[in-house]
């Protein structure tokens, strides 16, 4: 146990920096991926069939491809050279967009038909009905599963170590391979991840309870 504490104190700087990179990567992923998911969800209700089909294909491919494969594809496959960090953010946000579009779609569908009808009867354009009536309420309905998914995507940032992004897992791995304290360092990494994910999932449950009570 002291060994674990010692390792943590010795490599505190690297580990905390790594966690910082993990968090920034997650935040950039959400900033790109969540609007993408909303866009795909709205597109899946589009009047034009071609748009709907395109959205469905994107979502199915995005959901069917493992995040790790997506990561390698973006990093090695894009014709432009991007930093590993940016490649990871793009790949993870593609996955995020595909998954969250389904979650958001469910939320949008949860908006009562009567309200959409009222908006129609008032003469609101389809775009305004979507933006002012359906989206705000649909996102509210979708909030708990969206938060849950964000926790999963935060965990998925670990995959970025495979393309040498210096996030927490990469740091733990590199330290461990120099001092051979594999168990200690991976345990520390795991605890640091849990330090964020467990409170986040408790928070998510609270939000879900609160929303359930208010409707």
């Amino acid at each position, binding site marked *: 146990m002291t060994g674990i504490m010692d390792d943590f104190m010795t490599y505190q700087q690297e580990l905390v920096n790594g966690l910082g990179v993990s968090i920034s990567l997650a935040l950039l992923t959400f900033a790109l991926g969540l609007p993408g998911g909303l866009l795909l969800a709205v597109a899946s209700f589009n009047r034009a069939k071609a748009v709907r089909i395109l959205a469905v294909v994107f979502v*199915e*491919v995005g*959901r*069917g*491809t*493992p*995040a*790790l*494969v*997506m990561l*390698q*594809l973006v990093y*090695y*496959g894009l014709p432009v050279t991007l930093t590993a960090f940016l490649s990871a953010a793009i790949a993870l946000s593609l996955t995020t967009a595909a998954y969250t579009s389904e979650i958001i779609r469910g939320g949008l569908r949860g908006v009562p038909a009567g309200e959409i009808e009222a908006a129609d009867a008032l003469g609101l354009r389809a775009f305004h009905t979507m933006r002012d009536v359906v989206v705000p309420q649909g996102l509210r309905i979708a909030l708990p599963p969206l938060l849950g998914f964000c926790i999963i995507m935060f*965990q*998925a940032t*670990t*995959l970025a*170590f*495979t393309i040498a992004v210096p996030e927490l*897992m990469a740091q*733990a*791995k590199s330290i*461990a391979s120099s001092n*051979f*304290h*594999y*168990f*200690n360092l*991976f*345990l520390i*990494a*795991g*605890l640091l*991840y*849990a330090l964020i*994910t*467990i409170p986040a*999932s408790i928070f998510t449950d609270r939000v879900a309870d609160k929303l359930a009570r208010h409707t």
Partner: protein
Amino acid sequence: MTENVWTFVAQGISNTIGLTVLGFSLGALLGIPLVAMRFAPLAPVRWISGTYIQITRGVPLVVWLFLIYNGPTQFDPSLGSVFTSWLSALLAIGLVSGAHMAEIYRGSLRAVPLGQREAGGALGMTQVDTAARIIAPQMLRTAIPASATYAIGLLKDSSLASTIGVFEVTFYANTAAGTSSSAVPFLVAGVYYLALTIPSAWGARHLETRLSRKVLR
């Protein structure tokens, strides 16, 4: 390379499927005692299983993989030959999916109306009997589609096992990409995963509608 990249990457399919099926089975079994503990009359027992589930799900799978694969060698390097890539991946996936499956069981148990649980008692059935005859079949109707969805997710997550050297689809894609310095093998891997997951997802959806129709009847 490009001609046989398809066959090269395909060598990993059996391991991808094997790891998914065995890991899921292990998780499905492990989930049973965990969910039983969640409903135990003793508070500490409930607490232990709740904490176990929370922590297991809160730590990324990649960390579990490396913790099990490399961790033991810190204490005894010879343990490296015990915790092989394959065994470590199986244990990590089993561990994590056990926690998820326990939550799926819990959710489907909650979906069974409370009245039916009580009605069983009123009819003079013992608790175990009630559980086996009335609750379990109903639970399965909601648990099966949710588990199917989870298993499909696991198929994609099994790609992470490549990071500790399990010879599955992504591992072969990685190797091929390394030697050919092109991203095509990953495209091939992506196609294989889609070919495996999309039909399974359709199957799961079909199963779900069939089961929900049965419930309505």
